[in-house]
């Protein structure tokens, strides 16, 4: 393992940008491409937004982002201790949302799965949800050579 980071914050929407910034800084020295970086930020943003909107739904609680860097492979888990996902299969369906009235697009899981190399959801009703993804980066220098 090359590096590790744990960040915990209150489930408030203004912390979505904090989570993105922390993960972005954590991988900065890998010299990721703009697109790799943007995809990684998007996954983190989707997962943290889900934890805040669905996991806690306005309730008090903490979201924890745990990132591990192993060579060029980043692995991140985003954990909440909220209500859990009753039906994971439906939640993964494109356009499925339980918060249509909040204009949620229902695309979060589709985007997270598409932008990551490996993606898992672990959820227990009443205990919370942990989303884990891995993404391999191809350093710009390596491509140039």
């Amino acid at each position, binding site marked *: 393992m090359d590096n590790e980071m744990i960040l915990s914050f209150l489930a408030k929407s203004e912390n979505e940008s904090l989570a993105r910034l922390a993960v972005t800084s954590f991988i900065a020295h890998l010299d990721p491409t703009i697109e790799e970086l943007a995809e990684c930020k998007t996954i983190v*943003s989707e997962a943290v*937004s889900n934890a805040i909107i669905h996991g806690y739904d306005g309730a008090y609680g903490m979201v924890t982002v745990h990132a591990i860097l192993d060579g060029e492979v980043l692995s991140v888990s985003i954990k909440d201790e909220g209500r859990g996902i009753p039906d994971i299969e439906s939640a993964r369906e494109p*356009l499925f949302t339980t918060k249509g009235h909040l*204009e949620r697009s229902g695309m979060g899981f589709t985007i997270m799965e598409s932008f990551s190399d490996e993606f898992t959801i672990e959820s227990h009703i009443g205990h919370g949800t942990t989303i884990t993804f891995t993404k391999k980066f191809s350093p710009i220098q390596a491509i140039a050579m």
Partner: protein
Amino acid sequence: MKCKITMYPNEVAIIKLYGELDHHEVEKVRSQISSTILQGDLKTLIWNLEYLQFMDSAGVGLILGRMRELHAVSGRTIILNPSPTMEKIFRFSGLAAYMMHGGEEIAISQARGIVNG
């Protein structure tokens, strides 16, 4: 996050978004954009994303929501200059047909149905 709305004759509005558009920021700009649609005779909304540094699915929700409002007045939507990552997000969401690249003038011409060349 900054949002600049410019109205043009013939019922066209261009929305320029700056900074990062996530669930938190969407909540702040939605009502401003909605009131532009609901006032007057707006027929086309052009989202210029050239200066937007980041967007997640909350941006899709924002645009889809405004498309529904525009639908009531038979209005149309153009998503202008999304980044490659945003393009993927719009494609996943079934919005590929609404995207285009180029200057605002071209988008306005397209909106007015005057396509040259």
